[in-house]
């Protein structure tokens, strides 16, 4: 499979749109666990990325640069905890894309592995802490094992999204241990972690984007 720089930009655009649609839902989840602003924070960051997509990145064909600019822009716009986490993800992932205007399945696999490893390193959270890592770690493991078996990125990523969804759902049943919501104790039970939800949505958006790119 081949994914072009334009399609990477379509993916980022699709995330922008998706976050606007899910903004209220993400805030609602966060009101139960934190200060209720996760949707707003994600929106501020992705709107800033959108401005770059329509500006500096409009003609950019280097997928590595697109990823670096996305990470830095998101970070500068939001700060917060998601800023450094996603920025680290996009900047680490950028190495797999460096100098490339067309990406193979191997590149995409390397990107997501570096992306998730970067977030893990920056946030130091583990599975069971009720964070985005509960979504991303199963996704990482699924990608490593499924891509290794088939070398078919699209079908591997289908499994990744399924594993991520299960991971996200699992946050309902765990007590918060990290971030601001860690002081909630049992009151955090029953609610999906907003960071786990938005990271799942981003992976899902990537899947739908590359699927429609294949059809086209």
């Amino acid at each position, binding site marked *: 499979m081949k994914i072009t720089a334009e399609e990477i930009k379509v993916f980022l655009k699709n995330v922008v749109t998706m976050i606007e649609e899910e903004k*209220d839902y993400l*805030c609602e989840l966060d*009101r139960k666990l*934190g*200060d*209720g*602003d996760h*949707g*707003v*924070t994600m929106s*501020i960051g992705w709107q800033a990325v959108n401005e770059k997509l329509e500006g500096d990145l409009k003609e950019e064909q280097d997928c590595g640069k697109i990823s670096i600019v996305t990470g830095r822009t998101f*970070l*500068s*716009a*939001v*700060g*917060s*905890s*998601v*800023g*450094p*986490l996603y920025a680290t993800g996009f900047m680490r992932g950028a190495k797999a894309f460096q100098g490339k205007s067309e990406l193979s399945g191997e590149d995409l696999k390397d990107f997501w592995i570096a992306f998730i490893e970067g977030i893990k390193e*920056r*946030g130091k959270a583990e599975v069971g802490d009720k964070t985005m890592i509960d979504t991303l770690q199963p996704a990482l493991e699924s990608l490593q094992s499924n891509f290794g078996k088939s070398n078919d990125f699209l079908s591997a990523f289908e499994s990744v999204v399924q594993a991520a969804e299960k991971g996200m759902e699992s946050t309902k049943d765990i007590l918060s241990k*990290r*971030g*601001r*919501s*860690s*002081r*909630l104790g049992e*009151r955090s039970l029953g609610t999906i972690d907003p960071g786990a939800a938005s990271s799942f949505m981003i992976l899902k958006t990537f899947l739908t984007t590359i699927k429609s790119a294949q059809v086209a």
Partner: protein
Amino acid sequence: MKKLINNPTKVVEEMIEGYVKAYPNHVRQLTENERALVTAKETREGKVGVLIGGGSGHEPAFIGYVGDGMADGVAVGNIFASPPPDPILEATKVIDKGEGVIYVYGNYAGDVMNFGMAAELADLESGIRVGSVLVTDDVASAPKEEKEKRRGIAGEFFVTKAAGAAADKGYNLDDVVRVAQKANDYTRTMGVGLTPCSLPQTGKPSFVLAENEMEIGLGHHGEPGIEKGDLQPADQVVDRLVHDILMDMPIDSGEKVAVLVNGLGSTTNMELYIMFRRVEQILSEKGIEIHRSYVGSYSTSLEMGGASVTITKLDEELAAFIDHPADCPMYVQK
């Protein structure tokens, strides 16, 4: 909830603009980054720089504490969100006078990552030494055995005060860090929430409390506390708050303390004085000497209703720093 704003997405920019225009003799905005403010006065060569910062919505914290004897720079985040590394880094470069910079900020996951990244960049890009003290005064936010996980709330005022005074007196970076760390170790805060605040972008209350309810230990961003119950008279609430502080940090008769009774936004000074009255009764009964007291809204959560009590134990060194003069737009001490 009703707010006097123009555009919810522009509140931080417009607030900074107004603040800088209101206090041009105290602060200036950096052209390199509009979320970085520094003292308008030229600081001495060789003085350790003091940098504070955090999310917006806590005014007068943190912007209000840039001035003589306090902080030299501040990085301003979005509402209740840590600033990114850029404004922290830009302010660091300006306030470094060759002796390094201390970062004083509340212990929140986002702040730790962003200030941590900025400290690394300051070292890598500009060779500036940075020391950090994370404020962890909120007793309710984690048990004593895990007190390094506690978040920072109103007590940050005293930690900033100690760092600012030590830097002003010419201490080197290691000593400023030591003093600020000691101030943090000697500081405890307990709060109570009565009514929620709402973020300008969502307009919705950040948590729900019934008309007759209060919540002990409620966080500065609406994070749920440790106990909800019927609203009690001020004396009983203060008894509980001071009791929890003294259980966590015993103070002997004859020791000196600084006290801050802090309003969270919409609680009146009248209520805060009523609360302080009780704090004073309890401490004087125990023979604890109040060396200096502060009553008012020093660190708020937008229009949240409620208050906190902060007690800092003072040894000779800290007492001198608490007495050190300060001249900030939102806080003057002679």
